[in-house]
């Protein structure tokens, strides 16, 4: 895609856009005066962390505000039509015909009661763009262009009969149905696995180019936006931070905030020299099942003191189940878990207090991992008094010490409830709670994937520092290869309940790889704007597209 900024005439302009949202019967500003220009055929990337107001702006481009939100001021002009002043019926005639929308969760955004092709045809037929038969044949053609399997028949299925990645492409096809001038993509690949994401990204990019459609591409993922957009606009707290064409933005961001965003992925832990030859935890030939459904097959790996093992895989690979076996929530069918050479009882209820204490867990969603009705003092203090029997002043001192350890000021935080903390602070509290037990080994289950990138980076650095200071062993479960690259010593790659490949980090990230590891690694978007095109070119050459497009 060219990076010359504007391609054609101005299609959409926003001036001083302000949007308010209602909470507790009061109105708060979500978008605080944003200007935006979009030319015909141009793809604008809107990037920002949660709460930046990017989706709200995307919807405003259609003259739409969600219930509980209102556009309070500003100007939105789409191809000469002032959307702020336009009547509902004028806006209705634009929506779906000239401006279309692709939602984050296709599974929820398709009506479960109608077939895909019916929902595709609805737009063209209702808006009088084309007849039913014409729309259906167009649908089949678009399904083909978007590389959906069996494009002649897939439209006659219901949404729940089709996989997530396919639904997302079907939704893109639906958005294309009236050949709109503008499509809003609202995080279309966020809910997908990396290997699926790449396919969807590639097909979206191709079709947008083919029809020369302008697009607003909303995402929080820098590498993704670098592939998709001609121009990038960075948002924070409902305000524009900066805006430039993609190449400029990637190479020389101007603002401090943008620079930190860009720098986030630079963290890489220093390797720690091995201290002991005996594994601290070893998982030996574990096979496990939920009821009759087998989920783990003969899984074995070791974790050494002071080292991090990253377990990588996509959803359904069995990585979290492995953690459940180690913690004793799911007793294995076969095999066992050894700690310091001693086998642990399969069921956590049969383990001793000391055995429980030595393996702690940090969860993905810090929100649900701490009891919202307990103060920080109790959340961190309970394991201290429960395992170590401290009380009174010594307990208080220990809680404060732990808070300092996770870089939160004790006086400010000790009496707060979790609801009074930000997401990253909550995750720190979870870390403190794990540390309070004075464990040797901590399982980190996707601990950074629910956090914004800068905050996630802070958590990773904290975990790394604690590992050095306290000689902790981590089992780090993640689907994000960037995280793996940053923090692991050893890597275990899982697929469908089996270990595909395992070994030291450096070895895993240098070829030759196992076929699946290769697919996984090559699917992680890189910041280079040409990466996606190059990759697709390479895969087309290797004929890999065919084998994965059924995902």
């Amino acid at each position: 895609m060219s990076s010359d900024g504007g391609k054609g005439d101005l299609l959409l302009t926003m001036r001083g856009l302000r949007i308010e949202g209602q909470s507790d019967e009061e109105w708060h500003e979500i978008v605080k005066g944003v200007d935006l220009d979009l030319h015909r055929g141009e793809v604008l990337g809107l990037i920002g962390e949660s709460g930046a107001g990017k989706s709200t702006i995307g919807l405003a481009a259609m003259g739409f505000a969600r219930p509980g939100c209102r556009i309070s001021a500003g100007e939105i002009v789409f191809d000469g039509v002032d959307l702020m002043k336009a009547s509902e019926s004028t806006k209705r005639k634009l929506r779906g015909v000239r401006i279309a929308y692709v939602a984050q969760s296709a599974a929820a955004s398709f009506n479960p009661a109608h077939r895909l092709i019916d929902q595709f045809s609805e737009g063209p037929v209702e808006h009088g763009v084309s007849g039913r038969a014409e729309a259906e044949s167009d649908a089949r053609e678009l399904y083909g262009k978007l590389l959906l399997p069996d494009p002649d028949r897939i439209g006659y299925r219901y949404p729940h009969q089709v996989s997530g990645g396919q639904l997302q492409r079907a939704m893109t096809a639906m958005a294309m149905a009236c050949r709109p001038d503008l499509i809003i993509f609202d995080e279309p690949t966020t809910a997908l696995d990396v290997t699926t994401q790449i396919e969807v990204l590639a097909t979206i990019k191709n079709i947008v180019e083919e029809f020369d459609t302008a697009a607003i591409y909303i995402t929080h993922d820098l590498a993704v936006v670098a592939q998709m957009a001609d121009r990038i606009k960075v948002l924070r707290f409902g305000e524009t931070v900066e805006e430039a064409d993609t190449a400029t933005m990637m190479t020389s961001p101007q603002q401090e905030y943008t620079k930190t965003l860009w720098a986030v992925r630079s963290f890489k832990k220093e390797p720690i020299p091995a201290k002991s030859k005996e594994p601290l935890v070893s998982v030996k030939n574990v096979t496990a099942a939920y009821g009759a459904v087998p989920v783990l097959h003969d899984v074995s790996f070791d974790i050494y003191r002071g080292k991090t093992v990253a377990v990588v895989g996509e959803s359904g690979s069995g990585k979290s189940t492995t953690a459940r076996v180690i913690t004793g929530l799911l007793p294995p069918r076969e095999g066992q878990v050894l700690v310091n050479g001693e086998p642990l009882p399969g069921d956590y209820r049969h383990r001793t207090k000391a055995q429980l204490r030595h393996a702690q867990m940090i969860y993905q969603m810090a929100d649900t991992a701490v009891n919202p009705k307990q103060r920080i003092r109790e959340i961190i203090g309970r394991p201290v008094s429960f395992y170590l029997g401290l009380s009174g002043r010594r307990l208080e001192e220990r809680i404060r010490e732990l808070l300092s350890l996770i870089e939160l000021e004790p006086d400010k935080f000790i009496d707060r409830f979790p609801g009074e903390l930000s997401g990253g602070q909550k995750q720190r509290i979870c870390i403190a709670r794990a540390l309070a037990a004075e464990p040797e080994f901590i399982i980190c289950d996707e601990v950074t994937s629910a956090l914004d990138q800068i905050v996630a980076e802070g958590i990773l650095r904290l975990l790394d520092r604690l590992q050095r200071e306290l000689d902790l062993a981590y089992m780090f479960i993640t689907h994000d290869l960037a995280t793996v690259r940053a923090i692991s010593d050893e890597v275990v790659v899982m697929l469908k309940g089996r270990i595909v490949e395992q070994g030291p980090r450096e070895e895993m990230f240098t070829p030759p790889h196992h076929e699946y590891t290769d697919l996984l690694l090559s699917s992680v978007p890189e910041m280079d704007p040409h990466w996606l095109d190059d990759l697709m070119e390479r895969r087309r050459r290797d004929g890999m597209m065919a084998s994965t497009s059924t995902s």
Partner: protein
Amino acid sequence: MSDQDNITAQTADAVAPPPPRKRGVRDALRALAKAPLSAKFGLVVIVFYVFVAVFAPVLTPFGESEIVAAEYELWGTEVEHTDAEGRTQTVTLMFGTDNLGRDMLTRLLYGARNTIGIAFVTTCIAFLLGGVGGILAATVGGWTDQILSRIVDILMAIPALIFALLLLTIFGTSVLSLVLVIAVLDSTRVFRLARAVSLNVVVMDFVEAARLRGEGLSWITLREILPNIMPPLVAEFGLRFCFVFLTIASLSFLGLGLQPPTADWGSMVRDNATLITYGDITPLLPAGAIALLTVGVNFVVDWFLHKTSGLRDEQ
């Protein structure tokens, strides 16, 4: 890793951390001041009823079932009344007398005591049974949950009023059997709710964390789960109270609830029902008293639900 990086990470975390919430009596009063008119009305009604129920004997010179005049005297009839110390005075019977010549107002005041008291006790028992059962079923799971849930399914498959009628036929209509029968039947609803809301909490990671820490059942239920399910339980208490109150009133109205000579609003309606055909609204007084209280409680619960969860739309 430099200090510079650490600061970045920390400032990122410090991004808009919500300020500490304000709590306390002052805040509760402020919330109250902002409450809709219906909720304020409901609160006033409840306070008034509780006052009447507690001070009934002080508020009237007559005894609960004392016959003071001829039956069905009109509103505002005056009678001579001699109290315990032998002093005689003229008392105006504001609402006249009932079918046996007892003072209607006195009966209404005592009725508040009996009807509300019994409904309250019944609701408490229902909550004790259903609440404990529901939380346990959700926390322990497995067979305990299966057995308790199936028993409740069966009990709920029969309409409560019909079941109550059947049981009262068998066990007779004493206050004790009334309270127990209604409490057991009603506890099934509490069980369902307590189990459902507990299940939402039980799947949370902090409960798993507590289990993996090795905490016992009492810590998990009392410290981890209970505080998180209080708002729906409190709201449910209000709703269940209304339901129990109405059921008992209905049973009394049918002649199967509280037995004479106890003053009770349901049976007062029934005893004086014939008056309605003469256009006399006296029997509507106890009926209205029942309606007013349930309306008041429902208004307060509605506001409370709206306030605590924003889930008004989902009830």
